[in-house]
């Protein structure tokens, strides 16, 4: 696990956070992205970047286009205009599964788990692209396949320990309460050992205690594995605590971009949020 946080020199394009972590160069660069659904313009000419090792938040009122942005990054939506640069290379239009194979994992605002599978199986399925052996190999060399299987199991157990969900290992996830489902979904995304992790409202619908747990997990993932994280969140307190930099969207446009402090004092942002009720 590379840990940028403990390196001393600041890489090109990087910066040092107030708490002393060091952020690297640009991992993903979004340039002039425009996304339309028929007449609705969900994203209007938005540009921003995500740097290696940082926690980047996307905020904005309901319908601002935040989820659409995440869907563009993960390949679920194809923007009509704009370019996406990933690891210094321009990305051609890709299918979601291709983006996933490039090391981008995600969770969904409305939770998309394999409801019929257990927690263990869900997280294991998160590793499907990491599994090398194909059918033929598995039929012929059981030994090799078994070794691989046990490596995957080990990694999965590590994630289960990390997220403190040992008690629900064998529970079909459809039966779990909402907060735990969100946690399993995070686990499945982590199982892919992603370079970029996209979280769409990871704390929506949670109580205070669950939110605190989730915040801690997000910080730990970022710290221990050096995973770059882009997340959407409505709870301002959480956003200010977690993120290094924040993009603010409103009606499909970017109205602010900067550190939590900068964004908090931005007049356009304050206006956009006035009169908008959030949980």
């Amino acid at each position: 696990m590379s840990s940028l946080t403990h390196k001393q020199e600041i890489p090109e394009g990087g910066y040092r956070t107030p708490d002393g972590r060091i952020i690297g160069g640009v991992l993903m660069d979004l340039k002039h992205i425009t996304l339309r659904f028929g007449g609705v313009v969900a994203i209007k000419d938005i540009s921003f970047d995500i740097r290696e090792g940082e926690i980047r938040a996307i905020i904005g009122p309901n319908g601002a286009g935040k989820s659409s942005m995440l869907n563009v990054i993960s390949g679920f939506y194809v923007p009509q205009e704009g370019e996406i640069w990933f690891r210094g290379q321009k990305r051609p239009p890709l299918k979601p599964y291709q983006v996933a194979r490039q090391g981008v994992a995600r969770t969904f605002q409305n939770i998309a788990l394999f409801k019929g599978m257990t927690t263990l199986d869900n997280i294991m399925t998160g590793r499907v692209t990491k599994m090398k052996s194909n059918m033929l190999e598995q039929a012929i060399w059981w030994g090799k396949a078994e070794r691989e299987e046990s490596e995957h199991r080990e990694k999965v157990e590590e994630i289960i320990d990390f997220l403190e969900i040992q008690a629900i290992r064998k529970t079909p996830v459809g039966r779990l309460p909402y907060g735990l489902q969100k946690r399993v979904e995070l686990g499945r995304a982590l199982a892919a050992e992603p370079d970029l992790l996209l979280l769409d409202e990871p704390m929506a619908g949670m109580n205070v205690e669950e939110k605190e747990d989730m915040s801690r997990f997000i910080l730990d993932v970022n710290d221990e594995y050096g995973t770059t994280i882009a997340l959407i969140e409505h709870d301002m307190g959480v956003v200010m605590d977690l993120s290094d930099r924040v993009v603010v969207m409103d009606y499909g446009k970017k109205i602010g971009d900067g550190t939590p402090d900068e964004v908090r004092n931005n007049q356009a942002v304050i206006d956009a949020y006035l009169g908008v009720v959030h949980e």
Partner: protein
Amino acid sequence: MPIWGLSMSDTFFFALEAALNGLMAGVMYSLVALGFVLIYKASGIFNYAQGVMALFAALTLVGIQNGQIPFAHVINATFGTHLSTFGWTLPSFLAILLTLGVMVLFAILVERLVLRHLVNQEPIILFMATIGLAFFLEGFGDLMWGSEIKKLDVGLPQGISETIESLTEKWFGYGFFIDRLDIIAALVAAALVISLSLFSKYTKQGRALRAVADDHQAALSVGISLRFIWVLVWSIAGFVALVAGIMWGTKSGVQFSLSLIALKALPVLMLGGFTSIPGAIVGGLIIGVGEKLFEFFVGPLVGGATENWFAYVLALVFLVFRPQGLFGEKIIERV
């Protein structure tokens, strides 16, 4: 309950024999239903063409095995030639393998030419597409291999098993008539179901298949290609169709009526649930046994031929009391 002047024990043995034969017939229904369930689970498509796929697979197998030249009579009619065969007979194993290749090719073409263009369409549209596919494949099979009834012989044993007859005669004083082909069919079906479940549990592709069957979006997000899965599942359905085609073809010749076994799969699905593999198996067996027993006990009272409609009536009864089938997930309308 001694009926029709038979002794109690004779009635029992006759009924048992009928039930056993029904069990074997049920295996066939299960096989066809299995093909439906696989595709339905993975893609939500009710594949009307499953029965025709079995017919096509059997036709292709006979054609390849006997070295028939594809489209021979079309070519002959167009160019006035007299082509018919390559003049070889392939070993069954090789012919089956090649036929399997054809079914995989068919799966790839279905994905390329049909499914790919209908992504996110209503299920009814996809269903209509498979009806079209069924008609196409039926005509195509005719053109390719000719429409006459063909004999299929891949070396499976056939006829009443004398061993079983004499053994049961010795043990119970009643010799059971069981067709050896039926026993083979049951064994093959069991092997097929076991290997399918091992495949889906223990291989990467099987896991991906289960993932897609459970949630498309989630499957995409972990890096699974839906197109690949569709080709895979249609290939497996093609394989299942081939197995069903071999069994039925061996039993009663390869002919159009083979594709109609799909109609028997429908009540099986209503019974077992559209999304359950064990449901397809158990449903097939229940219908197989049920229709034979019903014919045995009730048939004589109503003038026979109950096998034509028994399955559908049973399915209707089920639809009323348990619309999700025996193993299907309970349908709960959220309000």
